């Protein structure tokens, strides 16, 4: 199944020299043949944003463990950062990430680098140097650049290097100490809330700045119906913006939040059922381009604490597809092809990355999915160093069983080979 070419048939995939050589029926069988009968072969997934812990938080994740988790989840490429503490704002750090990926990684690793020095939101980074070192996009982590003038200059300057600028939209003053969506459930739990407007104000501002500058803006983890409406209107008038959403914001709402279990603390927070429905609708009509995991590993010490003291985020590389298949595809909200496109072809297009397609001549990055086997998920058996997810014990189906990167099998029969 390759949404980039509109293909959904039973075909052979011929791989040679690390590339897709041909797609067709009854292709030449010289060399090794792998029988994928009954499974779905799709372009390898590309994750737009995963925290792989390096440098600085190796106790939670490393590029070695994180890329194995990615491979096990069907991802053949990940755009990586290392959490808000590690600001990749000079070329040396970009090189460090690439070097670690070359030594320890098992899938393609694309470094994200900072928009502003120190992530402080006032001075621009040396974007050209960052790009030369290998950065694929700019991202300041989960903090919005407070000063509109600084973001405006960043967008203008990034155009020079054709680097997409990825933004987290949250007004810090409105969000305040909030730890979950502001509304009925936050009131009942007595937890400080983050109103939807905290996101939407910044989405509106950033869309206007993208329009003003003509730069390539990518809005990370859209979470509210209001944001979807703003983005839809901006796209309709031709603003060059792309967006993503996490699987978690599609399948869960603030009603699911358990205040004594910090696994439910996410940033942005889980919103209402109406928001989740709007996100699905946005994915269907193209307002939201991609699905990104926002893989955020946290140690036990960071999560086995009071809700408002916990580090936000959950891991997601290994469960993204099964969660989407079990909840979103099974409910008929999106087809499997629509999900695959938003995990592969669309992310490649959004950040201008190679892959996301099985078109002959492209890198042989592919993932093989078993749609039928149901399995109880146990994060302790996973490849990530961290276990912070509320999905422990969930029955899921739609597990990737084999992953190929550049013509080489990285995962076979659900096991990471390297």
């Amino acid at each position, binding site marked *: 199944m390759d949404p980039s070419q509109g293909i959904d048939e039973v075909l052979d995939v011929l791989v040679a020299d690390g590339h897709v050589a041909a797609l067709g029926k009854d292709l030449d069988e010289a060399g090794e043949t792998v029988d994928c009968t009954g499974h779905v072969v799709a372009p390898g997934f590309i994750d737009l944003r995963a925290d792989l812990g390096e440098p600085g938080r190796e106790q939670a994740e490393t590029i070695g463990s994180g890329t194995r988790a990615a491979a096990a989840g069907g991802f053949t490429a990940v755009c990586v950062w290392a959490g808000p503490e590690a600001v990749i704002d000079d070329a040396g750090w970009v090189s460090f990430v690439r070097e670690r990926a070359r030594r320890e990684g098992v899938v393609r690793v694309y470094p994200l680098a900072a928009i502003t020095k120190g992530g402080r939101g006032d001075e621009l980074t040396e974007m050209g140097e960052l790009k030369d070192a290998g950065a694929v996009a700019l991202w300041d982590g989960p903090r919005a650049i407070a000063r509109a003038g600084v973001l405006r200059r960043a967008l203008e300057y990034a155009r020079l290097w054709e680097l997409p600028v990825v933004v987290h939209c949250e007004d810090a003053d409105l969000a305040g100490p909030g730890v979950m969506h502001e509304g009925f459930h936050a009131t009942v739990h007595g937890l400080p809330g983050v109103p939807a407007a905290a996101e939407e104000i910044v989405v509106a501002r950033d869309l206007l700045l993208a329009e003003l500058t003509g730069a390539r803006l990518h809005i990370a983890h859209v979470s509210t119906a209001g944001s979807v409406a703003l983005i839809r209107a901006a796209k309709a008038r031709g603003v060059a913006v792309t967006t993503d959403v996490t699987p978690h914001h599609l399948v869960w709402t603030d009603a699911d939040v358990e205040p*004594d279990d910090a696994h439910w603390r996410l940033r942005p927070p889980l919103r209402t059922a109406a928001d989740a429905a709007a996100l699905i609708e946005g994915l269907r009509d193209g307002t939201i381009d991609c699905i990104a995991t926002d893989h955020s590993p946290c140690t036990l010490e960071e999560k086995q*604490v009071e809700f408002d003291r916990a580090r936000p985020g959950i891991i997601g590389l290994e469960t993204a597809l099964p969660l989407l298949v079990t909840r979103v595809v099974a409910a008929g909200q999106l087809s499997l092809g629509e999900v695959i496109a938003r995990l592969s072809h669309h992310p490649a297009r959004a950040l201008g990355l190679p892959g996301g397609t099985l078109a002959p001549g492209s890198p042989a990055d592919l993932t093989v999915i078993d749609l039928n086997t149901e399995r109880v998920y146990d994060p302790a058996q996973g490849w990530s160093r961290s276990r912070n997810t509320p999905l422990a014990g969930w029955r899921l189906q739609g597990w990737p069983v084999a992953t190929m990167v550049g013509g080489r099998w990285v995962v076979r029969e659900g096991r990471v080979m390297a």
Partner: protein
Amino acid sequence: MAWARRHLIRMRDLSAADIQQVLDTAVACKDIFGRDVKKLPTLRGQVMVNLFYEPSTRTRTSFELAGKWMSADVVNISVPASSVVKGESLTDTARTLAALGADIVVIRHPSAGAPALLARTIGAAVINAGDGMHEHPTQALLDLFTIREAKGHVAGLHVAIVGDILHSRVARSNIWGLRTLGARITVVGPPTLIPPGLEQLGVAVSHDLDQVLPEVDVVNILRIQRERQHTALIPSLREYTRRFGLTRERLDLLRPDALILHPGPANLGVEIVQEAVDDPRARVHDQVTNGVAVRMAVLFLLMGGRGNAMAA
């Protein structure tokens, strides 16, 4: 009838029968107040820990007396907020308490959900003595007890809760308890101090105390935190008092048979004036006494079957 609960975390979990049972038990507990020897053997040999992460004199003393009058060995642990930030985690502390043989842990904590987290971590009975903006169940139970004592019933009464509803665990626990027992609830305060979604609980919201006061059977005045005026939630205490304080003039709006409650400690002259506390309709001092009785009842019911039988 045995109480099925191991912990008391939130009023939201309690049925009307659960609440009535606490209140009925508290009536018996209150009897011993008049005795020369205020001691029941119920919790002899049981270790009760008061684990307080926020300063509190009233609630801590009330629990301590309740425990002592029931013959528990009471240990008070006060943890300054600063040491939580740098030091031991709650789950770590919980395991330490378990290792020390705590049978009952009474916890007050600035984070909502902390008592529930503690209850998941240890085997001891956990009583929530106030967690963040979430709940303060024993305060609600003593308020209900006080109302029932004065009025004979709670169902059908109209209760106003006035003040900083947004930050108030007392308000949330009272709302659940009053709702479960069938009272009608109106909350009154400035829009900046009213959280969203209360209508979904069947609670009416008003910003006009003068209009509400003549209609209610009970007015529960919440403490206003002096810090709020520096966080753009209210411009000044003076303006707050003018619009939402229970002032001398407003006492005339209250019905002769209405009750005035305040969980204490009061900022006299801000949310309530001295005359209102001294008014014959006020039950502020009864609340303090009833607090001990209600906490004894909760201890008795939570330890039901484990402690010695309640002596009449």
